[in-house]
């Protein structure tokens, strides 16, 4: 009897130890693969940031690149040659030593036509990346790229193990992926779970973390729980330790729950906007676009629809983001009467049912968006405001699997996306450059001045010069009302109170980032 009791107690103690060494995380959506260079997909990025590293890390302020795999760097006076000195104590999960050859291979692969990296532009226009010695990389550009260091912090620029990529071939990122990150990719059951294990050799954590490595958990298990209310119930029931995808409408419940902690990533740049396809007759007139933008009450939408879990956005670039132009602040204001006047001036007159018409056509633009909770509810609220000024938005949500294809078509007037970004340049270079028509420049905005200023901003040699050109672009695209900025969506992490020292980061919706300090 005593023997049985002791055995049971021992077994229980063992079980307790095992669970204490596993961090259980939950997210709503899985990725199609974990090859960072071949995607723009957010659900790939958070996992990639756990098991792979970049040359430079992004500090908590969301603006400052700090040393990571590169311990220092110099930039040539013409801004075209970056010389990175690498750490010599870094190894991959496989045990292979990290060297400059891996860095050179990574960026050559990113730029190769076979990969078609959608975010390859974030690495600049590379002329050559070469290993000067095993721990020195010469990163040569065809033209200066003033935001290179900032954008090298993004997940698409993580350093790959050349041997691992070549060995796995087309299966890289599906059957496995090696990295130098604090966690190692252990197993992946698509749409079910991802398991990562501690990288025991890791000791090169960036200065932003107190713990330089290794991480304090043996395992990190990430379960995919697509249903919003299931994630809420699971967190309230303490089945998981943390999630960064907690539905915003339940944040108040999480805050009230005695077992949970809610943290907000600050700063946080995550814009929910509605864009206008300027080549469609119904929204070709900028007065019509402005009318829709000024007719809505953003503060009320943030408070009532997102229940305070968002801030009203009147500018496309957040005031706290790098290179925001303060002069854009007054371009969009709330004024329903002005909206009516603008529509009258544009020739859209109220019809018998209150909806405006012109030449027998109703002002009823088709609005596309992905059918997730935030976009749908915000679109519906805006629809309500616009009906009051005589505009009848025809809402068309699409499932997330088909939305990118549908939004690449041309037979709609307006679309909505929530976009995370790092700086004015990061946001505008991809969306407003005419080279990116028809997507992601879905506005079909083809303007020589915009293209020129973007190029000048990209290749500026000083921060001041860059800010000046990016300010000109912001002024132009906002005065043209190409986008209707609506909300800056807050990014929350909900954790069990037993999880300590976990500070959410803002980088590309990857609040966990490296998770080095987190512990029970």
């Amino acid at each position, binding site marked *: 009897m005593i023997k049985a009791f002791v055995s049971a107690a021992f077994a229980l103690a063992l079980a307790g130890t095992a669970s204490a060494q596993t961090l259980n995380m939950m997210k709503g959506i899985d990725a199609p693969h974990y090859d960072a260079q071949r995607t723009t997909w957010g659900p790939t990025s958070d996992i990639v940031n756990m098991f792979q590293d970049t040359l430079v890390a992004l500090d908590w302020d969301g603006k400052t690149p700090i040393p990571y795999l590169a311990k220092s760097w110099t930039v040539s006076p013409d801004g075209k040659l970056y010389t990175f000195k690498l750490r010599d104590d870094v190894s991959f999960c496989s045990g292979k030593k990290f060297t400059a050859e891996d860095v050179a291979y990574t960026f050559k692969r990113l730029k190769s036509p076979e990969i078609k990296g959608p975010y390859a532009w974030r690495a600049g226009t590379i002329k050559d990346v070469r290993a000067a010695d095993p721990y020195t990389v010469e990163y040569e550009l065809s033209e200066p790229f003033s935001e290179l260091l900032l954008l090298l912090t993004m997940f698409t620029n993580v350093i790959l193990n050349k041997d691992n990529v070549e060995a796995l071939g087309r299966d890289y990122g599906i059957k496995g992926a090696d990295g130098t990150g604090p966690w190692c990719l252990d197993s992946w059951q698509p749409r079910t779970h991802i398991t990562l294990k501690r990288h025991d050799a890791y000791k090169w954590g960036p200065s932003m973390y107190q713990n330089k490595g290794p991480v304090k958990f043996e395992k990190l298990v990430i379960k995919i729980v697509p249903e*919003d*209310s299931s994630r809420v119930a699971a967190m309230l029931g303490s089945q998981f330790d943390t999630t960064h995808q907690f*539905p915003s*409408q*339940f944040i*108040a*419940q999480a805050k009230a729950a005695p077992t949970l902690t809610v943290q907000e990533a600050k700063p946080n740049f995550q814009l929910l906007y509605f864009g206008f396809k300027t080549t469609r007759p119904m929204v070709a007139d900028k007065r019509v676009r402005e009318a829709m933008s000024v007719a809505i*009450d953003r503060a*009320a*939408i943030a*408070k*009532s*629809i997102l229940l305070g879990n968002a801030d009203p956005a009147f500018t496309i670039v957040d005031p706290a983001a790098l290179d925001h132009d303060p002069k854009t602040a007054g371009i969009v204001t709330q004024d329903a009467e002005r909206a009516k006047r603008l529509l009258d001036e544009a020739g859209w007159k109220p019809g018998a049912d209150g909806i405006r018409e012109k030449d027998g056509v109703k002002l009823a633009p088709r609005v596309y968006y992905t*059918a997730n*909770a935030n976009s*749908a*509810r915000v*679109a*519906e*609220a805006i*629809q*309500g*405001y616009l*009906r009051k000024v005589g505009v009848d938005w*025809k*809402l*068309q*949500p*699409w*499932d997330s*699997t*088909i939305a990118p294809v*549908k939004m690449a078509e041309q037979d709609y007037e307006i679309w909505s996306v929530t976009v995370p970004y790092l700086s004015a340049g990061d946001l505008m270079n991809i969306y407003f450059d005419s080279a990116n028509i028809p997507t992601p420049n879905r506005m079909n905005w083809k303007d020589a001045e915009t293209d020129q200023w973007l190029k000048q901003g990209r290749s500026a040699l000083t921060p001041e010069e860059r800010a000046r050109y990016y300010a000109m672009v912001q002024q132009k695209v906002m005065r043209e009302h190409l986008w209707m900025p609506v909300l800056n969506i807050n990014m929350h992490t909900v954790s069990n109170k037993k999880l300590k020292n976990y500070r959410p980061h803002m980088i590309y919706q990857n609040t966990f980032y490296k998770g080095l300090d987190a512990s029970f």
Partner: protein
Amino acid sequence: MSVETLNALPAPVPVGRAGVLRRLMRDKVAAVAAVALTLIALAAVFAPLIAPYDPYFTDLTKVMQPPGEQHWFGTDNTGRDILSRVIYGTRNTLMLGLVGVLIGGMLGGVLGILAAFYPRLDGWIMRLVDVMLAFPAILIGLAVAAIFGAGLTAVVIALVVATVPDVARVARGAAVGVMGQEFMEAGRAVGVSDSTLIWRYLTLNCISTIFVFLTLRFGQIILIGSALGFLGMGAQPPTAELGMMAAQGRDFLFMAPHIATIPSLAIFVIVLAANLLGDALRDVLDPRLQQ
């Protein structure tokens, strides 16, 4: 259903309209269901006259108000009056059910009768029906919505596809029974055309069976339509539709449970009333049950 079974049935007892109504009203449950459905249908038809508010008018200063004096059923997450939206939503939900049942019933009936009348088509039509039966209506709705976009059209297509195979089988069963009757053979013998035989002799003799089946099917169709609406495949905002309204309220169950529960209750009442009435109609019209 085999021919032998149908042939073994007693001859139908003719039932007049007054007889049907009288017997329906004798069943108290059926009477209550009929009255409830009639009131619901009247509210749906006269929605613009009855609804106290514009169902599309949003007011973000009055979101998620509980049921009260100003708004009997409260307001939703954009401040719209739920009572007005339920009235309009009922109209759309009933319309979906009716369209689904009528079009599906018509197509299924034609297929079933043709299968019975032309034996060479029988195998082809019935295999087609088997294929259609293999796809759940919800799956078809999701597929149509994914390809062409969510909307009432996607729901109607799904509901029609869901109705056709069942009706085709029932119609074929009834028609095979009628085909074995002597008057059909006599019609052929005297040279009556196929179209006359099909319409005047076959269809008119099967129609009550199909009708009873469709009344029973109506409740299920409404439920499937509401489920598709709940999944976001049906009507799109601001159109009021009960399934979609229930889905919108799901996100606010902790804060404002009335937003989801009131449209859900409305669906429950409509489906229950339709099922009870369908059962009663079957009892009145089915000759076997009359025995």
